[in-house]
């Protein structure tokens, strides 16, 4: 039996775990193609026009898998941490896909909810495994395999390698450059090279080392985010805020690039918090890049070049004082 995993949303975060888990249960795992023009076009046609591009792409990737697999794995991710939620669209996406008249193989949509349980993912995966085998021991073994895969994947990421190097065979971020930029954005925006316009590649070419959330210890990020008087209740919001604060406070980067999908709900507020709390008060260089299905690579290059030029000048001639003073 073949199970398809669309290359969307949390793919670049959990794929190694899902793959190891399903393979240990004796399934063949098929990821969908890397996002291409065709997938984007069909996604835009089939989805709700107001949704953000990452959600739209789910439609295209699912259709890409349609004839290749027997099942499609599209979890309903409710929350990944105590008292936090994912964006409502993450919670509703299996329902949206199922009701979209797409003519696709059955969707497997276990609810992944880590909000109140000490057992973490285990409960969800136990239920998930039950669909394929009655043998609980086998499921537990598969789950352990999955956790092991996730752990080694995360360890590799912490060494400064991007998910694209590991999963898509690219070679980014290995070298050490003079200018360092922290990208603050969701994994499904940065690592989907079609929608991010190959941002990491462009920055590498400009002589910039890219740091991202995946390279920092998760708990350290959350600790940073907990300074907020009212804690953010989106898992991703916390991570973005924490990452930005970590980068700035530890002096790891020369500037920050915020990547925001057009129409992203949580980010519209989180971005505001980062700007008002962290970057503006100390004049820290920051640029926000909004992406959608109409973004062009040329526009992106121009903006990134200008930003990097500014950082270089700042570093060479102005020390830590901006020209405002």
């Amino acid at each position, binding site marked *: 039996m073949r199970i398809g995993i669309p290359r969307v949303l949390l793919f670049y975060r959990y794929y190694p775990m899902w793959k190891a888990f399903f393979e240990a249960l004796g399934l063949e795992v098929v990821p969908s193609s890397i996002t291409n023009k065709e997938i984007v076009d069909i996604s835009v046609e089939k989805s709700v026009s107001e949704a953000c591009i990452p959600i739209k792409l789910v439609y295209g990737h699912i259709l890409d898998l349609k004839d290749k697999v027997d099942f499609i794995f599209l979890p309903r991710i409710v929350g990944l941490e105590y008292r936090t939620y994912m964006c*409502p669209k993450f919670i509703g996406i299996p329902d949206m896909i199922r009701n979209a008249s797409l003519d696709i193989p059955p969707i497997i949509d276990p609810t992944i909810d880590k909000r109140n349980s000490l057992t973490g993912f285990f409960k969800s995966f136990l239920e998930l495994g039950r669909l394929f085998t009655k043998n609980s021991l086998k499921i537990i073994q598969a789950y352990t395999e999955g956790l092991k895969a996730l752990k080694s994947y995360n360890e590799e990421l912490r060494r400064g390698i991007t998910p694209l190097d590991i999963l898509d065979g690219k070679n980014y971020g290995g070298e050490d450059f003079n200018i360092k930029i922290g990208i603050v954005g969701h994994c499904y925006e940065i690592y989907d090279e079609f929608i991010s316009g190959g941002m990491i590649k462009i920055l590498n070419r400009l002589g910039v080392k890219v740091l991202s959330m995946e390279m920092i210890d998760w708990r350290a990020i959350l600790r940073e985010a907990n300074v907020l008087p009212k804690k953010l209740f989106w898992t991703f919001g916390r991570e973005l805020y924490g990452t930005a604060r970590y980068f700035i406070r530890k002096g790891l980067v020369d500037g920050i690039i915020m990547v925001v999908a057009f129409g992203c*709900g*949580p980010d519209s507020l989180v971005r505001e918090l980062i700007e008002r709390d962290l970057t503006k008060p100390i004049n820290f260089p920051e640029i926000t890049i909004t992406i959608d299905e109409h973004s062009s690579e040329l526009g992106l290059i121009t903006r990134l070049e200008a930003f990097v030029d500014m950082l270089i000048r700042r570093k060479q001639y102005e020390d830590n004082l901006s020209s405002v003073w």
Partner: protein
Amino acid sequence: MKITYPPFGDARIAIESFLRDFGHEVIPPPPSTNRTLSIGVKYAPEFACLPLKITLGNYIESIEKGADTILMLGGIGPCRFGYYAEVQRRILKDLGYDMDWIVLDLSNGWMNLFRSIKKIVNGNSVIKVIKALRLAWEKVLALDKIEKISRKARPFERYKGEVDNIVRETHKKLDQAGSISQVRQVLSEYRETMDSIIDEDSLEELVKIGIVGEFYVVLDHFTNFEIARRLGELGVWAENAFYIEDIVRIYLPLFRNKDIEERTRVALPYIKRSVGGEGQRTVAHTIEFAERGFDGVIHLSPFTCMPEIVAEGILERVSKDYDIPVLTLSIDEQTGLAGITTRIEAFIDMLKTKKRRRMAG
């Protein structure tokens, strides 16, 4: 302490009533206008949803009138509403307005909630608090009835604006009413006047539209371009899926009852889990209207509203399964009245043709 609050629709009358009863000096936010909107848009984050922008504009206009304290709700949920107060607080602070915020929010712990409530109660005795709450609640119920009846009466009004005038007068009287019996008195007078306008026999011939969607846009007349009035003038009987009472029951745990959950149950085949905000309820209410034999449904949402986008994706299927036309209007500061009117008129023409054909057999 000069207190103000985010108004939505007619609820302002009830909110003001109980704040006044507690002995606060209330600065009611001036009615929302295009100025309110442009102030909000100017200072709010670009992609924030419309209610955040409008309420921000409301605050600034109230501050201009001298308010120094803001009453607001907060919470935890996937919807952005729970974080409004935090973002708005920062924006106002950066603008130089140092406001005192009273945020009713359980997520900051019981102590904080208790402290906020204490500030609102303002040292009044328990009896007085209960009395004020009961009066405010009675006003909420009355406001909802006034709104419901006006929807029914508008298609029959003898001259344009007749119903609006009566409603405005009644709201004024309701605002002055100091006891429950006075509220009931106002309501029964209103009922009598309206009964003389409504032609019960031809009610069935009217095109009936259900309005579903995000609560602020559905209930705030300014935000939704007074859609109910416009529909009424076009000879349509438009009913909301919910009124102020339901929203209070949904968002304030104190008033919660089982009906709310019962009503969402019909949506489960389509959307298995609540996605925050009104997402799941929107689907449920659309099904409910279809089953009640309504001719069509108008779905209102603020642009980029996350739960409503999920609902929109599902409504397409519901519309097919239950054979009920659905028009989604997503509203932001760019939305123009002409665009909305054109779409509504076209939608109603379609419904009228459909209804005529069905009645002819």
